[in-house]
Protein backbone atom coordinates (compact mmCIF):
# COMPACT_ATOMS: atom_id res chain seq x y z
CA UNK A 1 0.00 0.00 0.00
CA UNK A 2 1.58 3.28 -1.05
CA UNK A 3 -0.49 5.55 1.13
CA UNK A 4 -1.43 4.92 4.70
CA UNK A 5 -4.24 6.30 6.79
CA UNK A 6 -3.88 7.76 10.25
CA UNK A 7 -5.00 6.60 13.67
CA UNK A 8 -7.05 9.31 15.34
CA UNK A 9 -7.92 7.68 18.66
CA UNK A 10 -7.91 4.21 20.18
CA UNK A 11 -9.43 2.37 23.10
CA UNK A 12 -8.48 -0.81 24.88
CA UNK A 13 -10.87 -2.62 27.18
CA UNK A 14 -9.40 -5.58 29.00
CA UNK A 15 -9.17 -6.98 32.55
CA UNK A 16 -11.81 -4.53 33.77
CA UNK A 17 -9.67 -1.56 32.73
CA UNK A 18 -10.38 0.98 30.04
CA UNK A 19 -7.55 2.83 28.32
CA UNK A 20 -8.22 5.68 25.93
CA UNK A 21 -5.35 7.06 23.83
CA UNK A 22 -2.78 5.65 26.20
CA UNK A 23 -4.34 6.92 29.42
CA UNK A 24 -6.54 5.11 31.85
CA UNK A 25 -10.13 6.24 31.41
CA UNK A 26 -11.81 3.93 33.87
CA UNK A 27 -11.05 0.98 36.12
CA UNK A 28 -13.74 -1.28 37.47
CA UNK A 29 -13.34 -3.52 40.50
CA UNK A 30 -10.76 -6.19 39.71
CA UNK A 31 -13.10 -8.92 40.96
CA UNK A 32 -16.22 -7.62 39.19
CA UNK A 33 -17.79 -9.84 36.59
CA UNK A 34 -18.25 -8.49 33.07
CA UNK A 35 -21.91 -7.62 33.63
CA UNK A 36 -21.04 -5.37 36.56
CA UNK A 37 -18.01 -3.86 34.87
CA UNK A 38 -19.69 -2.98 31.58
CA UNK A 39 -22.66 -1.37 33.30
CA UNK A 40 -20.28 0.73 35.36
CA UNK A 41 -18.53 1.84 32.17
CA UNK A 42 -21.89 2.66 30.57
CA UNK A 43 -22.75 4.86 33.55
CA UNK A 44 -19.31 6.48 33.48
CA UNK A 45 -19.74 7.41 29.82
CA UNK A 46 -23.02 9.13 30.70
CA UNK A 47 -24.76 8.18 27.51
CA UNK A 48 -28.19 6.76 26.84
CA UNK A 49 -28.59 4.02 24.33
CA UNK A 50 -32.15 2.70 24.43
CA UNK A 51 -31.30 -0.90 23.53
CA UNK A 52 -28.15 -1.14 25.67
CA UNK A 53 -29.45 -3.70 28.13
CA UNK A 54 -31.01 -5.79 25.38
CA UNK A 55 -27.72 -6.26 23.56
CA UNK A 56 -25.60 -9.30 24.20
CA UNK A 57 -22.27 -8.87 26.00
CA UNK A 58 -20.16 -8.79 22.84
CA UNK A 59 -22.28 -5.94 21.46
CA UNK A 60 -22.14 -4.02 24.74
CA UNK A 61 -18.35 -4.30 24.62
CA UNK A 62 -18.07 -3.26 20.98
CA UNK A 63 -20.54 -0.39 21.29
CA UNK A 64 -18.81 1.14 24.31
CA UNK A 65 -15.30 0.66 22.88
CA UNK A 66 -16.52 2.57 19.82
CA UNK A 67 -18.21 5.21 21.95
CA UNK A 68 -14.86 5.97 23.56
CA UNK A 69 -13.05 6.61 20.28
CA UNK A 70 -15.91 8.59 18.75
CA UNK A 71 -17.00 10.74 21.65
CA UNK A 72 -14.67 13.64 20.91
CA UNK A 73 -14.20 13.00 17.22
CA UNK A 74 -17.36 14.66 15.82
CA UNK A 75 -17.15 12.43 12.75
CA UNK A 76 -20.64 13.18 11.49
CA UNK A 77 -19.70 16.84 11.29
CA UNK A 78 -16.65 16.02 9.18
CA UNK A 79 -17.98 13.26 6.98
CA UNK A 80 -21.23 12.15 5.38
CA UNK A 81 -22.81 8.90 6.54
CA UNK A 82 -21.47 6.78 3.67
CA UNK A 83 -17.92 8.06 4.09
CA UNK A 84 -17.59 6.32 7.46
CA UNK A 85 -17.29 2.55 7.72
CA UNK A 86 -16.84 -0.22 10.29
CA UNK A 87 -14.43 -3.17 9.87
CA UNK A 88 -14.18 -5.47 12.87
CA UNK A 89 -12.89 -8.93 13.68
CA UNK A 90 -12.71 -11.57 16.40
CA UNK A 91 -12.09 -15.26 16.87
CA UNK A 92 -15.20 -16.53 18.62
CA UNK A 93 -17.79 -15.00 16.27
CA UNK A 94 -21.05 -14.92 18.27
CA UNK A 95 -20.42 -18.22 20.07
CA UNK A 96 -21.30 -16.87 23.52
CA UNK A 97 -24.79 -15.91 22.40
CA UNK A 98 -25.13 -19.00 20.20
CA UNK A 99 -24.77 -21.00 23.42
CA UNK A 100 -27.27 -18.82 25.27
CA UNK A 101 -29.75 -19.23 22.44
CA UNK A 102 -29.23 -23.00 22.43
CA UNK A 103 -30.27 -23.06 26.08
CA UNK A 104 -33.71 -21.81 25.05
CA UNK A 105 -34.31 -24.63 22.59
CA UNK A 106 -32.40 -27.65 23.84
CA UNK A 107 -35.14 -29.05 26.06
CA UNK A 108 -38.20 -30.22 24.15
CA UNK A 109 -40.25 -30.04 27.34
CA UNK A 110 -39.29 -26.48 28.13
CA UNK A 111 -39.02 -25.21 24.63
CA UNK A 112 -39.13 -21.42 24.20
CA UNK A 113 -36.77 -20.11 21.52
CA UNK A 114 -35.97 -16.50 22.31
CA UNK A 115 -36.17 -14.08 19.38
CA UNK A 116 -34.30 -11.37 21.29
CA UNK A 117 -31.38 -13.73 21.89
CA UNK A 118 -31.46 -15.16 18.36
CA UNK A 119 -31.04 -11.69 16.89
CA UNK A 120 -27.53 -11.60 18.38
CA UNK A 121 -26.34 -14.95 17.03
CA UNK A 122 -24.28 -13.28 14.30
CA UNK A 123 -20.98 -11.47 14.87
CA UNK A 124 -21.81 -8.51 12.63
CA UNK A 125 -24.84 -7.40 14.64
CA UNK A 126 -22.43 -5.35 16.75
CA UNK A 127 -21.70 -3.42 13.55
CA UNK A 128 -25.42 -2.91 13.08
CA UNK A 129 -25.71 -1.49 16.60
CA UNK A 130 -22.71 0.83 16.10
CA UNK A 131 -24.11 2.07 12.79
CA UNK A 132 -27.61 2.64 14.17
CA UNK A 133 -26.26 4.60 17.12
CA UNK A 134 -23.79 6.70 15.16
CA UNK A 135 -25.77 6.92 11.90
CA UNK A 136 -22.98 5.32 9.90
CA UNK A 137 -23.85 3.89 6.47
CA UNK A 138 -20.51 3.22 4.80
CA UNK A 139 -18.93 -0.10 4.02
CA UNK A 140 -18.83 -2.60 6.85
CA UNK A 141 -17.65 -6.15 7.32
CA UNK A 142 -16.61 -8.66 9.97
CA UNK A 143 -13.67 -11.04 9.79
CA UNK A 144 -13.02 -14.18 11.79
CA UNK A 145 -9.38 -14.86 12.63
CA UNK A 146 -7.79 -17.10 15.18
CA UNK A 147 -6.03 -14.07 16.58
CA UNK A 148 -5.94 -10.39 15.80
CA UNK A 149 -4.29 -9.83 12.42
CA UNK A 150 -3.01 -6.22 12.24
CA UNK A 151 -1.33 -6.71 8.85
CA UNK A 152 -4.54 -7.78 7.16
CA UNK A 153 -6.83 -5.34 8.97
CA UNK A 154 -4.67 -2.24 8.43
CA UNK A 155 -4.14 -3.12 4.76
CA UNK A 156 -7.83 -3.66 4.24
CA UNK A 157 -8.84 -0.34 5.78
CA UNK A 158 -6.03 1.61 4.07
CA UNK A 159 -7.17 0.15 0.77
CA UNK A 160 -10.63 1.56 1.42
CA UNK A 161 -9.06 4.99 2.01
CA UNK A 162 -6.82 4.83 -1.06
CA UNK A 163 -9.68 3.81 -3.34
CA UNK A 164 -11.82 6.62 -1.96
CA UNK A 165 -14.46 4.29 -0.59
CA UNK A 166 -14.19 5.67 2.91
CA UNK A 167 -12.70 8.70 4.59
CA UNK A 168 -12.93 7.31 8.09
CA UNK A 169 -13.28 3.88 9.65
CA UNK A 170 -13.97 2.33 13.04
CA UNK A 171 -11.90 -0.83 13.17
CA UNK A 172 -10.27 -3.41 15.43
CA UNK A 173 -10.97 -6.51 17.47
CA UNK A 174 -13.98 -7.26 19.68
CA UNK A 175 -13.78 -10.64 21.34
CA UNK A 176 -16.03 -12.09 24.03
CA UNK A 177 -16.31 -15.68 25.14
CA UNK A 178 -17.14 -17.23 28.49
CA UNK A 179 -16.32 -14.11 30.44
CA UNK A 180 -12.96 -13.59 28.71
CA UNK A 181 -13.14 -10.40 26.76
CA UNK A 182 -10.87 -8.06 24.91
CA UNK A 183 -11.61 -5.01 22.80
CA UNK A 184 -9.14 -2.97 20.81
CA UNK A 185 -11.06 -0.47 18.72
CA UNK A 186 -9.68 2.59 17.01
CA UNK A 187 -10.77 5.31 14.63
CA UNK A 188 -8.71 5.55 11.47
CA UNK A 189 -8.92 8.43 9.02
CA UNK A 190 -7.64 8.96 5.51
CA UNK A 191 -6.24 12.45 6.01
CA UNK A 192 -3.76 13.66 8.55
CA UNK A 193 -4.68 16.04 11.36
CA UNK A 194 -3.45 16.76 14.87
CA UNK A 195 -2.02 14.19 17.23
CA UNK A 196 -2.17 11.27 14.91
CA UNK A 197 0.14 8.45 14.08
CA UNK A 198 0.38 6.56 10.81
CA UNK A 199 -2.10 3.72 10.34
CA UNK A 200 0.12 0.70 9.86
CA UNK A 201 0.55 -2.74 11.39
CA UNK A 202 3.75 -1.60 13.12
CA UNK A 203 2.03 1.34 14.78
CA UNK A 204 -0.91 -0.81 15.76
CA UNK A 205 1.39 -3.31 17.41
CA UNK A 206 3.11 -0.48 19.27
CA UNK A 207 -0.03 0.88 20.82
CA UNK A 208 -1.41 -2.46 21.74
CA UNK A 209 0.32 -5.76 22.21
CA UNK A 210 -1.98 -8.73 22.58
Amino acid at each position, binding site marked *: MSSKGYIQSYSIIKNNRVVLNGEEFFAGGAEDDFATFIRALYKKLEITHSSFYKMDDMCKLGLLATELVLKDAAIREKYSDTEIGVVLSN*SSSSLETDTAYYETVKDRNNYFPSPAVFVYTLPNIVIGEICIRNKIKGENT*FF*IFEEYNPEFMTDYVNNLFVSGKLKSCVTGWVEYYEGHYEAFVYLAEATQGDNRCIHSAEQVRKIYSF
Partner: protein
Amino acid sequence: MVITGLGVISSIGNNVQENFNALTSLKPGIGHIQNLDTVHKNIIPVSEVKLTDEELVQMAGFDKNRAVTRTTLLGVIAAREAYLSAGLDKVNKLRTGFISATSVGGMGKTEVLYPRYLDPNDTGDFMRFLETHDCGESTERIAETLGIKDFMTTISTACSSSANSIMLATRMIKAGMLDRAIAGGVDSLTVFTINGFNTLMILDREHCRPFDDSRQGLNLGEGAGYIVIESEEAAKAGNRPILAEVGGYANTNDAYHQTASSPDGQGAFLAMKKALEVAGLKAEDIDYINVHGTGTPNNDLSEGTAMTRLFGANVPKFSSTKAYTGHTLGACGGIEAVYSTLAIMNKTIFPNLNFKVKMKELDLTPETSLLSGVDIKNVLSNSFGFGGNNSALVFKKI
Protein backbone atom coordinates in the same frame (compact mmCIF):
# COMPACT_ATOMS: atom_id res chain seq x y z
CA MET B 1 -11.15 -9.07 -12.85
CA VAL B 2 -12.64 -12.00 -14.74
CA ILE B 3 -14.57 -15.12 -13.83
CA THR B 4 -13.15 -18.40 -15.09
CA GLY B 5 -14.93 -21.03 -13.02
CA LEU B 6 -18.21 -21.77 -11.24
CA GLY B 7 -19.23 -24.27 -8.59
CA VAL B 8 -22.55 -24.77 -6.83
CA ILE B 9 -24.55 -27.27 -4.81
CA SER B 10 -28.09 -26.49 -3.67
CA SER B 11 -31.53 -28.00 -3.22
CA ILE B 12 -32.03 -27.93 -6.97
CA GLY B 13 -28.84 -29.64 -8.03
CA ASN B 14 -25.49 -31.00 -7.00
CA ASN B 15 -23.47 -29.15 -9.62
CA VAL B 16 -23.74 -26.24 -12.05
CA GLN B 17 -25.39 -28.22 -14.85
CA GLU B 18 -28.05 -29.71 -12.57
CA ASN B 19 -28.82 -26.30 -11.09
CA PHE B 20 -29.14 -24.78 -14.56
CA ASN B 21 -31.43 -27.59 -15.69
CA ALA B 22 -33.70 -27.10 -12.71
CA LEU B 23 -33.78 -23.33 -13.17
CA THR B 24 -34.75 -23.67 -16.81
CA SER B 25 -37.32 -26.38 -16.20
CA LEU B 26 -38.89 -24.41 -13.35
CA LYS B 27 -38.26 -27.13 -10.75
CA PRO B 28 -37.88 -25.74 -7.21
CA GLY B 29 -36.21 -27.65 -4.37
CA ILE B 30 -38.57 -26.77 -1.53
CA GLY B 31 -40.20 -29.50 0.55
CA HIS B 32 -40.50 -30.99 4.02
CA ILE B 33 -37.52 -31.42 6.35
CA GLN B 34 -35.73 -34.72 5.72
CA ASN B 35 -32.28 -34.52 7.27
CA LEU B 36 -32.96 -32.97 10.68
CA ASP B 37 -34.73 -34.11 13.81
CA THR B 38 -36.98 -31.25 14.89
CA VAL B 39 -40.48 -30.55 16.19
CA HIS B 40 -41.09 -28.60 12.99
CA LYS B 41 -40.53 -31.58 10.74
CA ASN B 42 -43.77 -31.69 8.80
CA ILE B 43 -44.77 -28.12 9.32
CA ILE B 44 -42.07 -25.79 8.05
CA PRO B 45 -41.03 -26.16 4.40
CA VAL B 46 -37.28 -25.90 3.72
CA SER B 47 -34.94 -26.26 0.79
CA GLU B 48 -32.40 -28.98 1.60
CA VAL B 49 -29.66 -30.37 -0.58
CA LYS B 50 -31.04 -33.76 -1.57
CA LEU B 51 -28.18 -35.79 -0.11
CA THR B 52 -27.58 -37.23 3.35
CA ASP B 53 -24.33 -36.51 5.18
CA GLU B 54 -23.07 -39.99 4.23
CA GLU B 55 -23.77 -39.35 0.57
CA LEU B 56 -21.99 -35.99 0.79
CA VAL B 57 -18.96 -37.67 2.38
CA GLN B 58 -18.79 -40.04 -0.58
CA MET B 59 -19.23 -37.29 -3.10
CA ALA B 60 -16.56 -35.16 -1.46
CA GLY B 61 -14.24 -38.14 -1.45
CA PHE B 62 -13.53 -38.05 2.27
CA ASP B 63 -12.85 -40.98 4.53
CA LYS B 64 -16.10 -41.95 6.23
CA ASN B 65 -14.45 -41.96 9.65
CA ARG B 66 -13.27 -38.40 9.39
CA ALA B 67 -14.86 -35.76 11.66
CA VAL B 68 -16.29 -33.37 9.13
CA THR B 69 -19.33 -31.08 9.14
CA ARG B 70 -22.07 -30.83 6.54
CA THR B 71 -20.97 -27.24 5.98
CA THR B 72 -17.46 -28.36 5.04
CA LEU B 73 -18.77 -31.12 2.77
CA LEU B 74 -21.06 -28.80 0.82
CA GLY B 75 -18.25 -26.24 0.58
CA VAL B 76 -15.69 -28.76 -0.67
CA ILE B 77 -18.02 -30.06 -3.37
CA ALA B 78 -18.86 -26.62 -4.75
CA ALA B 79 -15.39 -25.07 -4.35
CA ARG B 80 -13.79 -28.07 -6.02
CA GLU B 81 -16.19 -27.86 -8.94
CA ALA B 82 -15.28 -24.18 -9.36
CA TYR B 83 -11.55 -24.93 -9.10
CA LEU B 84 -11.67 -27.73 -11.68
CA SER B 85 -14.04 -25.94 -14.03
CA ALA B 86 -11.56 -23.05 -14.11
CA GLY B 87 -8.85 -25.56 -15.02
CA LEU B 88 -6.72 -24.42 -12.08
CA ASP B 89 -5.29 -27.92 -11.75
CA LYS B 90 -3.81 -27.61 -15.23
CA VAL B 91 -2.01 -24.27 -15.06
CA ASN B 92 0.98 -22.97 -13.15
CA LYS B 93 0.14 -22.11 -9.62
CA LEU B 94 0.14 -18.38 -9.03
CA ARG B 95 -0.78 -16.54 -5.82
CA THR B 96 -4.21 -17.99 -5.09
CA GLY B 97 -6.59 -17.14 -2.27
CA PHE B 98 -9.59 -18.90 -0.78
CA ILE B 99 -12.17 -16.49 0.61
CA SER B 100 -15.17 -18.19 2.12
CA ALA B 101 -18.16 -17.23 4.18
CA THR B 102 -20.58 -18.94 6.53
CA SER B 103 -22.99 -18.07 9.30
CA VAL B 104 -23.56 -21.53 10.73
CA GLY B 105 -20.13 -23.19 10.59
CA GLY B 106 -20.21 -26.50 12.43
CA MET B 107 -23.42 -25.76 14.36
CA GLY B 108 -25.17 -28.76 12.78
CA LYS B 109 -23.03 -31.20 14.71
CA THR B 110 -22.61 -29.04 17.80
CA GLU B 111 -26.33 -28.73 18.45
CA VAL B 112 -26.64 -32.51 18.49
CA LEU B 113 -23.48 -33.22 20.52
CA TYR B 114 -23.50 -30.28 22.92
CA PRO B 115 -25.07 -32.10 25.91
CA ARG B 116 -22.52 -34.88 25.41
CA TYR B 117 -19.62 -32.41 25.31
CA LEU B 118 -20.76 -31.09 28.68
CA ASP B 119 -21.05 -34.51 30.34
CA PRO B 120 -17.67 -35.43 31.85
CA ASN B 121 -18.70 -39.09 31.96
CA ASP B 122 -19.47 -39.20 28.27
CA THR B 123 -16.31 -39.52 26.23
CA GLY B 124 -15.56 -41.05 22.91
CA ASP B 125 -14.98 -40.53 19.26
CA PHE B 126 -17.54 -37.76 19.02
CA MET B 127 -15.18 -35.39 20.86
CA ARG B 128 -13.29 -34.92 17.58
CA PHE B 129 -16.19 -32.81 16.37
CA LEU B 130 -15.55 -30.22 19.06
CA GLU B 131 -12.99 -28.42 16.95
CA THR B 132 -15.19 -28.40 13.85
CA HIS B 133 -17.54 -25.79 15.28
CA ASP B 134 -15.81 -22.53 14.37
CA CYS B 135 -16.73 -20.63 11.21
CA GLY B 136 -13.09 -20.64 10.16
CA GLU B 137 -12.79 -24.40 10.35
CA SER B 138 -14.77 -25.17 7.20
CA THR B 139 -12.71 -22.58 5.32
CA GLU B 140 -9.47 -24.25 6.43
CA ARG B 141 -10.66 -27.75 5.51
CA ILE B 142 -11.78 -26.66 2.05
CA ALA B 143 -8.56 -24.72 1.36
CA GLU B 144 -6.58 -27.74 2.53
CA THR B 145 -8.49 -30.04 0.19
CA LEU B 146 -7.80 -27.74 -2.76
CA GLY B 147 -4.18 -27.19 -1.80
CA ILE B 148 -4.57 -23.41 -1.44
CA LYS B 149 -2.01 -21.94 0.91
CA ASP B 150 -1.32 -18.35 -0.12
CA PHE B 151 -4.28 -16.66 1.50
CA MET B 152 -7.41 -17.69 3.32
CA THR B 153 -10.06 -15.88 5.34
CA THR B 154 -13.65 -16.23 6.52
CA ILE B 155 -16.29 -13.55 6.36
CA SER B 156 -19.36 -13.75 8.54
CA THR B 157 -21.91 -11.03 7.93
CA ALA B 158 -25.15 -13.01 7.77
CA CYS B 159 -26.92 -13.12 4.40
CA SER B 160 -24.48 -10.82 2.61
CA SER B 161 -21.45 -12.91 3.62
CA SER B 162 -20.53 -14.56 0.33
CA ALA B 163 -21.23 -11.42 -1.71
CA ASN B 164 -18.67 -9.76 0.56
CA SER B 165 -16.24 -12.63 -0.10
CA ILE B 166 -16.50 -11.95 -3.82
CA MET B 167 -16.00 -8.26 -3.23
CA LEU B 168 -12.87 -8.85 -1.15
CA ALA B 169 -11.43 -11.31 -3.67
CA THR B 170 -11.92 -8.86 -6.52
CA ARG B 171 -10.27 -6.07 -4.59
CA MET B 172 -7.28 -8.13 -3.53
CA ILE B 173 -6.65 -9.11 -7.13
CA LYS B 174 -7.16 -5.51 -8.27
CA ALA B 175 -4.66 -4.38 -5.62
CA GLY B 176 -2.12 -6.88 -6.88
CA MET B 177 -2.14 -8.91 -3.69
CA LEU B 178 -3.40 -12.07 -5.38
CA ASP B 179 -3.54 -13.39 -8.93
CA ARG B 180 -6.53 -15.65 -8.43
CA ALA B 181 -9.13 -16.38 -5.83
CA ILE B 182 -11.97 -18.78 -5.21
CA ALA B 183 -14.64 -16.78 -3.46
CA GLY B 184 -18.13 -17.47 -2.20
CA GLY B 185 -19.72 -19.19 0.75
CA VAL B 186 -21.60 -22.06 2.31
CA ASP B 187 -24.27 -22.72 4.91
CA SER B 188 -26.04 -25.90 5.98
CA LEU B 189 -29.47 -26.15 7.51
CA THR B 190 -29.63 -26.62 11.29
CA VAL B 191 -32.31 -26.86 13.96
CA PHE B 192 -30.70 -23.78 15.52
CA THR B 193 -31.48 -21.74 12.42
CA ILE B 194 -34.98 -23.10 11.89
CA ASN B 195 -35.99 -22.34 15.47
CA GLY B 196 -34.41 -18.91 15.39
CA PHE B 197 -36.06 -17.76 12.20
CA ASN B 198 -39.34 -19.27 13.31
CA THR B 199 -39.28 -17.28 16.52
CA LEU B 200 -38.76 -14.09 14.49
CA MET B 201 -41.95 -15.07 12.65
CA ILE B 202 -40.49 -14.57 9.18
CA LEU B 203 -40.90 -18.08 7.81
CA ASP B 204 -43.63 -18.95 5.35
CA ARG B 205 -45.62 -22.12 6.06
CA GLU B 206 -46.04 -22.42 2.29
CA HIS B 207 -43.59 -22.02 -0.57
CA CYS B 208 -42.28 -18.46 -0.51
CA ARG B 209 -43.64 -15.88 -2.91
CA PRO B 210 -40.99 -13.20 -3.48
CA PHE B 211 -42.38 -9.77 -4.32
CA ASP B 212 -45.97 -11.04 -4.22
CA ASP B 213 -48.54 -9.03 -2.29
CA SER B 214 -49.61 -12.07 -0.25
CA ARG B 215 -46.07 -13.15 0.69
CA GLN B 216 -45.67 -14.35 4.27
CA GLY B 217 -41.98 -15.01 4.68
CA LEU B 218 -38.97 -16.99 3.57
CA ASN B 219 -38.11 -20.68 3.26
CA LEU B 220 -34.73 -21.60 4.72
CA GLY B 221 -32.30 -23.37 2.41
CA GLU B 222 -28.73 -24.64 2.35
CA GLY B 223 -25.94 -24.96 -0.16
CA ALA B 224 -22.66 -23.55 -1.40
CA GLY B 225 -21.65 -21.33 -4.30
CA TYR B 226 -18.15 -20.30 -5.40
CA ILE B 227 -16.69 -18.46 -8.38
CA VAL B 228 -13.09 -18.32 -9.53
CA ILE B 229 -11.87 -14.78 -10.11
CA GLU B 230 -8.57 -14.00 -11.82
CA SER B 231 -6.63 -11.00 -13.00
CA GLU B 232 -6.76 -10.65 -16.79
CA GLU B 233 -3.09 -11.56 -16.87
CA ALA B 234 -3.51 -14.77 -14.88
CA ALA B 235 -6.59 -15.71 -16.90
CA LYS B 236 -4.54 -15.74 -20.11
CA ALA B 237 -2.72 -18.91 -19.05
CA GLY B 238 -3.88 -22.25 -20.40
CA ASN B 239 -6.28 -21.09 -23.08
CA ARG B 240 -9.27 -21.24 -20.77
CA PRO B 241 -12.63 -19.63 -21.49
CA ILE B 242 -13.55 -16.45 -19.66
CA LEU B 243 -17.15 -16.58 -18.51
CA ALA B 244 -17.87 -13.04 -17.36
CA GLU B 245 -16.38 -10.18 -15.40
CA VAL B 246 -16.85 -8.87 -11.87
CA GLY B 247 -17.63 -5.31 -12.89
CA GLY B 248 -18.73 -3.61 -9.72
CA TYR B 249 -19.40 -4.05 -6.00
CA ALA B 250 -20.43 -2.07 -2.97
CA ASN B 251 -21.36 -2.50 0.65
CA THR B 252 -23.25 -0.17 2.99
CA ASN B 253 -25.06 -0.29 6.29
CA ASP B 254 -28.78 0.42 6.52
CA ALA B 255 -28.32 1.66 10.13
CA TYR B 256 -31.95 1.02 11.00
CA HIS B 257 -32.56 -2.20 12.98
CA GLN B 258 -30.72 -5.40 13.91
CA THR B 259 -32.85 -7.62 11.71
CA ALA B 260 -35.29 -5.46 9.73
CA SER B 261 -34.66 -3.25 6.71
CA SER B 262 -35.54 0.44 6.62
CA PRO B 263 -38.84 1.44 5.00
CA ASP B 264 -37.15 3.68 2.45
CA GLY B 265 -34.55 1.00 1.64
CA GLN B 266 -31.71 3.48 2.10
CA GLY B 267 -29.01 0.85 2.67
CA ALA B 268 -30.10 -1.14 -0.39
CA PHE B 269 -30.39 2.01 -2.48
CA LEU B 270 -26.88 3.19 -1.56
CA ALA B 271 -25.35 -0.25 -2.15
CA MET B 272 -26.87 -0.61 -5.62
CA LYS B 273 -26.00 2.96 -6.54
CA LYS B 274 -22.39 2.58 -5.46
CA ALA B 275 -21.99 -0.75 -7.23
CA LEU B 276 -23.10 0.91 -10.46
CA GLU B 277 -20.58 3.70 -9.91
CA VAL B 278 -17.75 1.24 -9.37
CA ALA B 279 -18.84 -0.58 -12.53
CA GLY B 280 -18.89 2.70 -14.46
CA LEU B 281 -22.50 2.09 -15.44
CA LYS B 282 -25.72 4.07 -15.47
CA ALA B 283 -28.99 2.66 -14.18
CA GLU B 284 -30.28 2.04 -17.71
CA ASP B 285 -27.27 -0.21 -18.46
CA ILE B 286 -28.55 -2.98 -16.18
CA ASP B 287 -30.32 -5.76 -18.08
CA TYR B 288 -31.27 -8.00 -15.18
CA ILE B 289 -31.41 -7.83 -11.39
CA ASN B 290 -31.13 -11.01 -9.36
CA VAL B 291 -32.83 -9.51 -6.31
CA HIS B 292 -32.32 -10.60 -2.71
CA GLY B 293 -36.09 -11.23 -2.73
CA THR B 294 -36.45 -13.49 0.32
CA GLY B 295 -40.25 -13.31 0.32
CA THR B 296 -40.53 -11.56 3.69
CA PRO B 297 -42.98 -8.65 3.82
CA ASN B 298 -40.16 -6.46 5.08
CA ASN B 299 -37.30 -7.24 2.69
CA ASP B 300 -39.25 -7.22 -0.54
CA LEU B 301 -40.93 -3.91 0.25
CA SER B 302 -37.67 -2.29 1.33
CA GLU B 303 -35.72 -3.68 -1.62
CA GLY B 304 -38.53 -2.82 -4.04
CA THR B 305 -38.64 0.74 -2.71
CA ALA B 306 -34.88 1.06 -3.18
CA MET B 307 -35.17 -0.27 -6.75
CA THR B 308 -37.92 2.20 -7.57
CA ARG B 309 -35.85 5.05 -6.15
CA LEU B 310 -32.80 4.07 -8.17
CA PHE B 311 -34.37 3.03 -11.47
CA GLY B 312 -37.45 5.24 -11.49
CA ALA B 313 -40.01 4.17 -14.04
CA ASN B 314 -37.49 1.92 -15.79
CA VAL B 315 -36.79 -0.90 -13.37
CA PRO B 316 -34.95 -3.61 -15.35
CA LYS B 317 -36.23 -7.17 -15.65
CA PHE B 318 -35.74 -8.83 -12.28
CA SER B 319 -36.43 -12.06 -10.41
CA SER B 320 -35.67 -13.76 -7.14
CA THR B 321 -34.30 -17.28 -7.46
CA LYS B 322 -35.03 -17.96 -3.78
CA ALA B 323 -38.35 -19.52 -4.74
CA TYR B 324 -36.19 -22.32 -6.21
CA THR B 325 -33.40 -22.62 -3.64
CA GLY B 326 -34.88 -21.08 -0.52
CA HIS B 327 -32.80 -18.55 1.38
CA THR B 328 -29.37 -20.12 1.69
CA LEU B 329 -28.19 -17.47 4.18
CA GLY B 330 -24.39 -17.12 4.09
CA ALA B 331 -24.21 -18.94 0.76
CA CYS B 332 -26.78 -16.93 -1.19
CA GLY B 333 -24.38 -14.29 -2.51
CA GLY B 334 -22.14 -17.02 -3.93
CA ILE B 335 -24.94 -19.18 -5.32
CA GLU B 336 -26.59 -16.17 -6.90
CA ALA B 337 -23.27 -15.02 -8.37
CA VAL B 338 -23.14 -18.38 -10.15
CA TYR B 339 -26.73 -17.93 -11.35
CA SER B 340 -26.01 -14.36 -12.53
CA THR B 341 -23.04 -15.62 -14.54
CA LEU B 342 -25.17 -18.42 -16.02
CA ALA B 343 -27.75 -15.83 -17.02
CA ILE B 344 -25.10 -13.89 -18.97
CA MET B 345 -23.52 -16.99 -20.53
CA ASN B 346 -26.81 -18.52 -21.62
CA LYS B 347 -28.69 -15.33 -22.45
CA THR B 348 -31.39 -16.47 -20.05
CA ILE B 349 -33.43 -14.81 -17.32
CA PHE B 350 -34.74 -17.22 -14.70
CA PRO B 351 -38.30 -16.69 -13.52
CA ASN B 352 -39.54 -15.57 -10.13
CA LEU B 353 -41.71 -18.55 -9.18
CA ASN B 354 -44.95 -18.34 -7.17
CA PHE B 355 -45.63 -14.71 -8.10
CA LYS B 356 -49.24 -13.76 -8.82
CA VAL B 357 -50.08 -10.25 -7.65
CA LYS B 358 -47.74 -7.28 -7.31
CA MET B 359 -47.36 -5.48 -3.97
CA LYS B 360 -49.97 -2.80 -3.32
CA GLU B 361 -47.35 -0.27 -2.44
CA LEU B 362 -45.19 -0.48 -5.56
CA ASP B 363 -45.56 -0.99 -9.28
CA LEU B 364 -43.12 -3.90 -9.56
CA THR B 365 -43.68 -7.13 -11.44
CA PRO B 366 -40.86 -9.68 -11.69
CA GLU B 367 -40.32 -11.97 -14.67
CA THR B 368 -42.56 -14.99 -14.27
CA SER B 369 -41.56 -16.98 -17.34
CA LEU B 370 -38.20 -18.23 -18.44
CA LEU B 371 -36.78 -15.81 -21.01
CA SER B 372 -34.24 -17.08 -23.53
CA GLY B 373 -32.23 -15.37 -26.21
CA VAL B 374 -31.87 -12.21 -24.11
CA ASP B 375 -28.67 -10.26 -24.67
CA ILE B 376 -27.63 -9.70 -21.06
CA LYS B 377 -24.64 -7.39 -20.73
CA ASN B 378 -24.89 -6.31 -17.11
CA VAL B 379 -26.40 -8.08 -14.12
CA LEU B 380 -26.95 -6.59 -10.66
CA SER B 381 -27.07 -9.08 -7.78
CA ASN B 382 -28.27 -8.04 -4.31
CA SER B 383 -27.57 -9.68 -0.95
CA PHE B 384 -28.80 -8.03 2.23
CA GLY B 385 -27.96 -9.35 5.67
CA PHE B 386 -29.05 -8.94 9.27
CA GLY B 387 -27.12 -6.20 11.01
CA GLY B 388 -28.01 -3.89 8.14
CA ASN B 389 -25.19 -5.28 6.02
CA ASN B 390 -26.17 -4.55 2.39
CA SER B 391 -24.10 -5.71 -0.57
CA ALA B 392 -24.55 -5.37 -4.32
CA LEU B 393 -22.45 -6.92 -7.08
CA VAL B 394 -22.37 -6.16 -10.81
CA PHE B 395 -21.42 -8.87 -13.30
CA LYS B 396 -20.60 -7.96 -16.89
CA LYS B 397 -20.57 -9.88 -20.12
CA ILE B 398 -17.10 -10.19 -21.58
